[in-house]
């Protein structure tokens, strides 16, 4: 709706929108500011101007062994995403380009598995992990995260693949392409943007997962979400350091998130809103 409005109205709307936006963003902003303060500054009343010290960041990295959970977060989120893509790409391909009477039902059923509350299977999963020695291992948690996000991955890929006209794949077939050629030279290059978006969203979801990571890890495989949750009482980790740890935990994903707004809508609504 590009309509002519007076500059004054526009400034009014702009002021209101920015006010609301800054209010919503404030907790994050204030955390960033606090992370740049000294501990003393952090607890001495409200102030938006830090002394810009990086000492809290250094302290978190040295005292609390920050890099281990960070590495775990990277491995778990990227690993589970790649695993999910390996399983989901062929499935989504098949459902998009060779649909059967049941395709719709299968998709709905996949969606329904996402609706199972995690806590409902806490007991068996916990016991299985305990007895098979998967507890606190990266491999166990990677598979776990892959399974809980698989339906979203299949769905997102499916909605992207469906936008590729089937005639182009048929044209490739007429042009003498084998199935391998068809997937390699025609489908994949066309699907790359969709696959990339799916990947991005899935990494974000896996990175932020905080139920299973807390339940199934202690120290070895704990990613940032579990690591941070252990600070629920700030023993030895005070305001500035807590803020620094928080900033480091959310910064990479926040930036990725900014780039994936559109895909987020599609992915999280299972294509119901585009």
């Amino acid at each position: 709706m590009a309509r002519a409005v007076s500059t004054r109205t526009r400034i009014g709307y702009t002021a209101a929108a920015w006010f609301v936006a800054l209010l919503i963003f404030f907790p994050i902003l204030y955390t960033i500011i606090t992370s740049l303060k000294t501990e003393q500054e952090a607890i001495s009343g409200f102030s938006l101007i830090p002394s810009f010290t990086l000492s809290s960041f250094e302290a978190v990295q040295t005292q609390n062994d920050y890099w281990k959970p960070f590495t775990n977060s990277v491995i778990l989120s990227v690993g589970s995403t790649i695993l999910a893509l390996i399983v989901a790409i062929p499935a989504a391909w098949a459902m998009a380009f060779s649909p059967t009477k049941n395709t719709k039902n299968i998709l709905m059923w996949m969606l329904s598995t996402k609706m199972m509350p995690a806590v409902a299977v806490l007991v068996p999963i916990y016991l299985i992990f305990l007895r098979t020695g998967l507890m606190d291992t990266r491999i166990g948690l990677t598979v776990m995260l892959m399974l809980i996000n698989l339906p979203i991955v299949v769905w997102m890929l499916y909605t992207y693949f469906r936008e590729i006209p089937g005639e182009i794949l048929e044209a490739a077939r007429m042009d003498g392409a084998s199935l391998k050629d068809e997937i390699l030279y025609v489908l994949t290059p066309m699907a790359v943007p969709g696959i990339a978006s799916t990947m991005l969203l899935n990494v974000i979801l896996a990175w932020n997962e905080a139920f299973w990571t807390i339940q199934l890890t202690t120290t070895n495989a704990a990613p940032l979400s579990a690591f941070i949750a252990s600070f629920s009482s700030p023993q030895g980790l005070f305001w500035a350091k807590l803020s620094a740890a928080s900033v480091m935990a959310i910064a990479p994903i926040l930036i990725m998130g900014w780039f994936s707004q559109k895909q987020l809508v599609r992915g999280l609504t299972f294509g119901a809103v585009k």
Partner: protein
Amino acid sequence: MATRQTASLARLMRAPAIILLLIWMIVPLGMTLYYSFLNYNLLNPTGTSWAGWFNYQYFYSDPAFFDAIWNTLALVLGVLTITVVGGIAIALLIDKPIFGQGIVRILVISPFFVMPPVAALIWKNMIMHPSYGVFADIARFFGAQPVDWFAQFPLTSIIIIVAWQWLPFATLILLTALQSLDGEQMEAAEMDGAGSLSRFIHLTLPHMARAITVVILIQTIFLLGIYAEILVTTNGGPGNASTNLTYLIYRAARLNFDIGGAAAGGIIAVILANIVAVFLMRAVGKNLD
């Protein structure tokens, strides 16, 4: 394009995803169902025995159970109200011709990418802390006594935190829906003499109805499972004041080692979630064709 060769290949390619999800769905759920009928406590060395409906009765007769159900409902409804109403308002505002719309969007969407434990910690320590939080600073500025949020209003505090996390989601989806609204239709209505309020009620709201439904249903699924925020802030307390069903089951399983009881709670959670799921599937399913 359905030739026999493609069709059989397609079957092969679908299989791994389907089999994995089938196992993922059936095995743990079956085990939960089975355990829910057992006397089974990890601290009890005498092993397990058949319990019949005992775990369900026990759960049902536990006053904490009703607290938890009530808290779960209050949490879901509270957050939904704030996010849907707030989301519509903010979406309408951002959709206006404003300067720096891109940056405003980025600022508004950001809380969604903050992992739950961090969100909870930020609010607990930076904002709501009774002595060092921003709210306390504000209260002192006005000469009032700072509120100890998590002690005095535990559930409300958690609702505020969760609403903050989900407000961006609602806003973003409602904004997407809003932007697909046909501008010419709006202009036609304006030519017909419809005022801005009646345009909102008769055109904008109906257009967004579907997106609002989707927001409500998807959020409900996630809100039923709120866990980390409670763990980090109140631990479900004081008493059971901020314990929801998820947290109650977690406590039974992991702190009391009551496998049978936790399993029975899990089955109840499944039933609750399924009621929501049925509606969600209808809404999403319509979009498949």
